[in-house]
């Protein structure tokens, strides 16, 4: 599997990841190498195998419906890059 620079750009867009144009070649070749490497998976027959998402067979534990959190906005927004009037600010979103 070999990825083109265009494909790398598309994936980077999906991941909202800025990649410098001069680095595209090296990303493309590294990613191609990794994908080639993981293609070994294709060799094994898994037609009757269920995918395994968690290593331990356990069911989801449920939490009682109770309000346990109090307002910590001031604490949490201390680490925020841009806030005003309690709101997080981002460049204008056009809908």
């Amino acid at each position: 599997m070999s990825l083109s620079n265009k494909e790398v750009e598309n994936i980077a867009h999906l991941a909202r990841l800025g990649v410098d144009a001069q680095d595209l070649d090296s990303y493309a070749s590294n990613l191609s190498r990794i994908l080639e490497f993981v293609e070994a998976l294709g060799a094994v027959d898994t037609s009757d195998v269920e995918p395994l998402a968690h290593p331990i067979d356990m069911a989801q534990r449920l939490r009682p419906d109770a309000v346990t959190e109090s307002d910590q906005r001031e604490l949490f927004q201390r680490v925020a890059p841009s806030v005003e009037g309690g709101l997080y600010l981002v460049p204008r979103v056009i809908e």
Partner: protein
Amino acid sequence: MSVHDKTVAELSAGLAAGEYSSEELTRAFLQRIQGPGNELNAFVTLTEERALEAARAADRRRAASQAGPLTGVPMAHKDIFCTRDVRTSCGSRMLDNFISPYDAHVVEQLNAAGMVSLGKTNMDEFAMGSSNETSYYGPVKNPWDTQAVPGGSSGGSAAAVAARLVPASTGTDTGGSIRQPAALCGITGLKPTYGRVSRYGMIAFASSLDQAGPMARTAEDCALLLEAMAGFDQRDSTCVDQPVPRYSDALNQDLAGVKIGLPKEYFGEGLDAEVARVVDAAIEEYRKLGAEFREISLQNTALAVPAYYVIAPAECSSNLSRFDGVRFGYRCENPQDLEDLYKRSRGEGFGAEVKRRILVGTYALSAGYFDAYYLKAQKVRRLIRDDFLAAFNEVDLILGPTSPTVAFNLGERADDPVSMYLSDVYTIAVNLAGLPGISHPAGFAHGRPVGVQLIGTHFDEARLLNAAHRYQQVTDWHTRAPEAFA
């Protein structure tokens, strides 16, 4: 013997006997970190004031006869664990300015036990790496040879313990990140069963693989630490609600009749011959202790690294989406619009290896590739787990090398991600299967430490610690210190 040479158990005894105070110990270790330890770059943040405060609190607690075995013993946290009011960087520019508003469960547990954290250790960025070279704060150096890498991703934690800068540290292990640096630095490190230790407040790399564990010089110390770290936490849905055994009480059980499997796939191509000789010698020691060996087969071993490099990047690509420059962390200068904010904040905040993995993971989950990559890897994951479960019907433990080679040189594998990935070939399958594994020192090859890995069945940490402890009772590899840090 100076205090920095002592193990956690020994320091615990010395504190109990009043030979020194926690404050004295804390000052002594802080001096080691700032003095001889400085060149290793093992720490990214030192919390001197907080440490001394905690030490004095521990001393008061002892004076009030309320001290536990770990009260007053210094340690360090890998910088992946959130520590309230202290920068938690995860080795990344993205979180260089992140002061955590809360403590990780592991941090809470060890604080409650009275341990004194001296600071945060360096690591591969977001725990993605096997050499500590991907850290935003620069690589950590191996105390045995500063040309060599310490392994990763918990490289700072491993180097700090090996260089006697702290008696113990915490690490996390997603594909070998506790065991491989423990092996490369000549210390003991335990990755517990998935679910044994809460992941709350531990910055996620790959959620179905990540597990926190102790790193120290001996199995006994790891037992003491795990007793304190483990425990039910309702904030982590994947954390099991099972009592934590008293691991330190079971250390001296006889190994006679314990059946240990040697997977033939772990002794084949790729294994350094000198490393193999060290492992053989360790097998001989275990045999003398009464263990019985038999060859087993884990036939899908070769697929573990490929499966891992689909699953871990897939999970990480999603886990790392929250780093978007909106609510915390790095934000680019003057974003032009929303897309620019995302792309530059993430592009500038993450390093190359993290970006590679996000891209691989995004690709593996994207329309048209999901079945061939992600789903396929999850199926292979089941095959790999089933291999282990079948093996544990026949044997009690599995033994092999922790890493195929000793520590490689800084920069040696930096250009080829895949060769770097292969350094975790013996550890990765254990994470895929959610099993516990321990690496302990077993000798040297090419003048650098070699680790042996024991793998147990789910929640059988006690047996792993027991076996490694018995081995350490009859060998002294774990007591060797790098000359420059003796």
